[in-house]
């Protein structure tokens, strides 16, 4: 189930500050690679100037792992996610998912996506919103699977409710259920819980972990919450803004399933401190570079 099932109870955290580092060694076996980014650069041209959103980013993660991109706004983490979802094209460099192009994955209906806004269709019930991706893909989600998903996200009894009747947390659960309804190979999530309060958010993280563990999907979550990253990830990629670069790459070995008691352990705090240090170092560096310009 989890790639780190036999991890020791005490986490082994290795900080590898590696801007522009070479891809992981494991890429030699294509079979085990989840997704990989090679020398990825993205430049946005606006009226007045060019903005480098991503500067030569390389990264490779194993299949079935849970990766978190952590960074402040403007560090290009959402850009990476949008390129993996084939919503944007790199200016240079290459993106592959399970050895194929994002476009091939998207067209083959093997992609799951959740955004910060749950983006539920207000005229559809919970059930019909979860059925939607299957309808678009002409690959209907069986009724039993829909019911099972509704049960898994704890919305029994709300099958026929419209989104307007649900709270923010419930809407986001529907969005997560919808994202995994078609059993995608890769699950991309762009700050799906960003608008929720801290307590709801933690519950959602636990549910997400459970749902992901039950699937075989390679997951990528974008966030700016340090504790969310430390709680969910097998590996946290820390990014700095303008231009977006990788400033830290931390493997997190807490055994799964992780519960909320983990949040109060010294080990968890040590990981959070480490992420925080990397995040601020990257931020300060970028600010200095900006000032020097």
């Amino acid at each position, binding site marked *: 189930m989890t790639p780190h099932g036999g991890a020791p109870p005490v986490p082994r955290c290795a900080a590898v500050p590696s801007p522009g580092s070479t891809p992981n060694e494991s890429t030699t076996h294509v079979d085990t690679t989840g997704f990989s980014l090679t020398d990825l650069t993205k430049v946005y041209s606006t009226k007045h100037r060019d903005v480098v959103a991503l500067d030569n980013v390389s990264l490779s993660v194993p299949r079935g792992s849970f990766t978190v991109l952590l960074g402040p706004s403007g560090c290009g983490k959402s850009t990476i996610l949008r390129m993996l979802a084939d919503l944007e094209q790199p200016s240079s460099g290459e993106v592959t998912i399970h050895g194929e192009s994002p476009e091939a994955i998207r067209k083959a209906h093997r992609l799951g996506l959740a955004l910060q806004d749950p983006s539920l*269709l207000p005229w559809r019930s919970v059930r019909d919103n979860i059925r939607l991706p299957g309808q678009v893909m002409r690959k209907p989600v069986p009724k039993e699977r829909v019911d099972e998903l509704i049960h898994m996200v704890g919305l029994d009894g709300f099958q026929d409710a419209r989104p307007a009747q649900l709270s923010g947390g419930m809407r986001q659960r529907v969005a997560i259920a919808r994202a995994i309804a078609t059993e995608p190979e890769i699950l991309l999530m762009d700050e799906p819980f960003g608008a929720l309060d801290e307590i709801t958010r933690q519950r959602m993280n636990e549910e997400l972990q459970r749902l992901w563990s039950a699937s075989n999907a390679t997951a990528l979550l974008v966030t700016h919450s340090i504790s969310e990253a430390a709680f969910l990830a097998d590996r946290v990629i820390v990014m700095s803004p303008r231009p977006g670069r990788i400033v830290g790459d931390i493997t997190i070995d807490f055994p799964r399933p992780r519960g909320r008691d983990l949040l109060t352990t010294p080990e968890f705090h040590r990981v959070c401190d480490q992420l925080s240090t990397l995040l601020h170092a990257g931020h300060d560096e970028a600010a200095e570079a900006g000032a020097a310009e």
Partner: protein
Amino acid sequence: MSVAPATRRERRTPDHTAQIAAERARVRSASRRSAVSGWLTTVVVCLVMLGLWELLADLWLTRAGVLAAPSAILQSLVENASLYVSSFLVTGWVALRGWFWGNLVAIVLAVLFVQVPALESLFLRLALTLFCLPIVAVNPLLQLTFEPDTARVVLTSLSVFFTTLVGTMLGLRSADGGSLTLVTAWGGGPLSSLRFVRVPAGVPAILTGLQIGVPAAALGAIFGEFIGAKSGLGVLLINGLMGLDLPRVWSVAVIVTAMASVPYALFGLLRRVLVPWSAGISTAPARSAAVTGSPLRRMLIGTAWVAGSVVVILLAWQAYLVVFDVSPFVGKSPLDVFNRLFVDEGAAEARAALGEALLVTLVHAGVGYVAGLVIGVAVAVLFVTFPVAERVFTPLAVALRSVPIIVLIPVLILALGRGLGGVVAITAIVTFFPTLANTQTGLKQVPADAFILMRSYDASVWTNLWRLQLPYTLPAIFASARIAAPTSVLAATLAEWLATGDGLGHAIVMARSGSAYTDLWAAAAVLTLVSLVFYGIVSWAERLVLRRFAPGQLA
């Protein structure tokens, strides 16, 4: 957890539960009482006004030839019932077909434009031209081209077409950006986006378009009957106006109002039933494809689109003559009109006559337009400041919105005379109602927190109005000002056609009866151009205002 607030409330101590129940009952009965009393007040005010109307008419106004008493209208309706019914059937059938075709074409085009943006850039201006084509100018041209019945149906569909087109496009575009992104990520193409997201999202706007189209269809159908018709409500209206038959004119006005407002109300109801979900739960805006590149490049592209549109419009004019095989005697091409106004003998006189008529029309339309805007905003502010006035008069204003201007014109002309006053009142009224409604809506969209903030500064009512409410409402005011611009030209020319004997409206009547077809086409072209320029100026002002007050609404 998410339903917890409700359950937690239930878990309170019993004495609290009792207090809560009592409070809830109090609030509910208070709101029911206020709703009932609001309607009751409206009904009472209407009855009082009706009584006053009867009284004034009986005592004085009917003798002065201003308005007919309600009793006289009723009498006329009863005595000539069979005539009114047969006329209603004739006009209603034309209105129904025109309404159907106009809306159908508009919805299909809206879908095409949204799916293929290049088509929109080129053809939306053509569609806008169709909207700015004052039906005063189109009516005689259509009568020259088609069978009388077909011409009336086409005229009706033209008067319905544009608002549905724009409304549907807005509706399809209002689709949530996140949902569209998801459909793309699931491997869905533009058709999937259309089917699963855009069309359902557009349903409310489409229904609104169908609703607004009802009075517009009545207008088109009746105005079509002003030329060469033998039966129909339009004929009765003209005859009544010519013979100064007050009860006749008012009876037709009542029938047409009923014909328009009953379906209008039904569509409003239908929208509430069909669209029970509450909008606005997700607010991610759709990404729009903005033109990028250097300012010069953007200007060149913009100019190219405008030039392309002008070419398309002129080609459409020429194509109209060819496709419908209009005889060269009555059908004049852009070149013919150009020659008449700039090359041929007598070009200077033709230009002078046209210019004089144009000036008159501009005064008629402009004065009424500005007056309608100012009064509309003022009344809306009054309504929001004194909610009592709003409760009483809003149902009345909504009802009056469904009255087609075509029946207001004869009524107002009889009441106010054929001079400047009558025409200005007409253009003012057609501008007034949409402005009032839009401004009212806009004033209510000010965020509640902004008022709380102003309250913490102890701001006065006037400060609130000036610093907060009016700036928030500017986009809504300008939206209605833009739509009202061609309508005011239309209203002015309709009044000129029917009553005043000057201006472009009258010039068109004269050109038609004198078989001066080149002059007819020239007047139609100038009138359309004026409408377009008027619309363009207001749009430009709107963009300036939006840039400062609502940058999010700019594409």
